[in-house]
């Protein structure tokens, strides 16, 4: 989606899924980054007419367009990520980001010494509030007295791409006492993680596994397996199963990242606590509130 292919996060995940597919199968794919809204429809049609099948698109902004285009190309399969489009030849993939955010929130609360953690969102849209809300719930689950400082970077798409501001927001949060920050801000997050590393506090990455960006300084990452979703859609090819597909903790679509870069940061205790919650969510025992369900968040 708008924000650029190499945001080290959402879009990059989609791209790497596609690349993985192409490397494994030798298939070829075309990709386009859009420059304008009117082009969304155009791109879909042109790809469909050129015989691309399936066509995978990432980002909720395609929703409207797809619902108009899909019926015109009944033989083409579409997959859309982050949005639900009800059409017989469309597979809609949505993620339970609030669940993953909950998990990293728990992690952050445990890692925090000051009892204050931060959240830095990208553009202020419901989706990002959904991230924030899940995160706060996770933090409070561990430490009900914790403070969560929340900032959104901006209100225009430029907010996905403003690391300078991300960096300054991080500094501001640090000066308010935050010692773990969670960046759900696309390219802006690069600045957040950088500053957190510079200033010696911990950060939490998003969408892709960002632990390696500053080894030993990124606590964990909330992984939204967009790459998997894209990979699966492409692997399925014309046989793509259409319909509604929720990716959550339960089916591995959402997870938090553990690897050699953050092994030293996460104690066994911390991991145990988070894994317990993960199991509960997976089994349905624990329901994390979804901001989008009613446009509000039970905790601040």
């Amino acid at each position: 989606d708008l924000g650029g292919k190499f945001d080290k996060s959402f879009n990059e995940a989609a791209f790497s899924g596609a690349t993985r597919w192409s490397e494994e199968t030798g298939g070829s794919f075309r990709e386009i980054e859009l420059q304008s809204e009117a082009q969304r429809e155009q791109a879909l049609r042109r790809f469909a007419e050129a015989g691309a099948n399936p066509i995978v698109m990432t980002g909720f902004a395609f929703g409207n367009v797809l619902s108009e285009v899909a019926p015109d190309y009944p033989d083409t399969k579409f997959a859309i990520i982050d949005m639900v489009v009800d059409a017989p030849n469309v597979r809609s993939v949505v993620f339970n980001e609030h669940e993953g955010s909950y998990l990293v929130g728990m992690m952050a609360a445990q890692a925090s010494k000051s009892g204050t953690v931060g959240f830095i969102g990208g553009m202020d849209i419901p989706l990002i509030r959904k991230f924030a809300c899940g995160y706060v719930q996770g933090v409070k689950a561990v430490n009900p007295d914790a403070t969560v400082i929340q900032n959104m970077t901006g209100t225009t798409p430029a907010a996905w791409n403003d690391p300078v501001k991300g960096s300054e927001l991080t500094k501001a949060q640090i000066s308010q006492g935050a010692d773990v920050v969670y960046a759900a801000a696309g390219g802006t997050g690069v600045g957040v993680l950088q500053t957190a590393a510079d200033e010696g506090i911990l950060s939490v990455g998003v969408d892709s596994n960002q632990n390696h960006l500053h080894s030993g300084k990124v606590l964990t990452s909330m992984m939204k397996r967009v790459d998997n979703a894209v990979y699966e859609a492409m692997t399925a090819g014309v046989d793509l199963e259409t319909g509604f597909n929720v990716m959550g903790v339960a089916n591995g679509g959402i997870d938090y990242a553990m690897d050699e870069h953050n092994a030293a940061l996460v104690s066994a205790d911390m991991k145990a606590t988070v894994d317990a919650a993960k199991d509960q969510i997976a089994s349905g025992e624990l329901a994390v509130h979804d901001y989008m369900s009613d446009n509000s968040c039970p905790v601040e």
Partner: protein
Amino acid sequence: MDFLTLLQVLDTSVRLATPLLLACLAGLYSERSGVVDIGLEGKMLAAAFFAAAFAFYSGNAWVGLLAGVGASIVLSIIHGLASVTFRGNQLISGVAINFLAAGMTVLAAQSWFRQGGRTPPLEGAARFNPIELPFAIGPNDAAAAERPLSQLIAEAGPFQQFYSELISGHSILVYLALLTVPATWWLLFRTRFGLRLRAVGENPAAVDTAGISVVWLRYGAILICGILCGVAGAYLSSALQAGFVKDMTAGRGFIALAALIFAKWRPVYALWACLLFGLFQALELRPDIIENLTGMKVQVQLLGALPYILTVVILAGFVGKAIPPRASGEPYIKER
């Protein structure tokens, strides 16, 4: 708001004011010579990219700075060609330069690094790192004490807080930018070059008939403008940030122009104006402070628009009719 919070906000203001100040002084030279430059934004952007790219290749922030300044100067020369040599419309030339920089930086970044129009992150000596002044509490002390820096500072006395938080710990370019203010004042009002520069912005015909070349004077000013914009851009990508991302100037060139008007084209006022705009931007990052001060929850959108709204308010309310250098914006045409 306690003293330390105030210092923190001011600290952020200084950091954020630095690119504004450099760009504002750049604009000052240009407009004082009679050439309006709304392409500050584009020059900074181009400089930010080239500085980051060359700093990455060389591993040396100073090499990056030079490259950034070079890129900015190239755009300056284009502006000079358009507005001095070919006596075209200066506003339009500025608009074109902004577009050119916006497109070219991403194009070049993509073609060199293939990372979607950004440069790889800069590390170590490829960045301008904060300088710790003598006796200040800095990251080294924090490392030695094995405690967060913020805590150490919080425990220090007020003067030490002031010194360590606000005065120390900026990158060299911040201090350089601050030094540029008195240097500019001195150059403008105490030297022959300054006299001529001010004159050519007021009445180029007077300069011309006094036997001085209007063209060269203006190119001189435009060149200085390019250098300062170059430093501003390098600061953005290799001091404030660790690398280039597209459109990273985010309107700073325009805010700098507003500051220039607010400052009535005077260097010392420019410092205050830029610090004020820096403060607005710093406050935007601290909704908690605004909420404490006003006792209201502030909408993010309002917060984000705050610097722009305040700019308009200041221009309308406090500056009134600012009188620019008389010849600024008009090409000097002897014969038609």
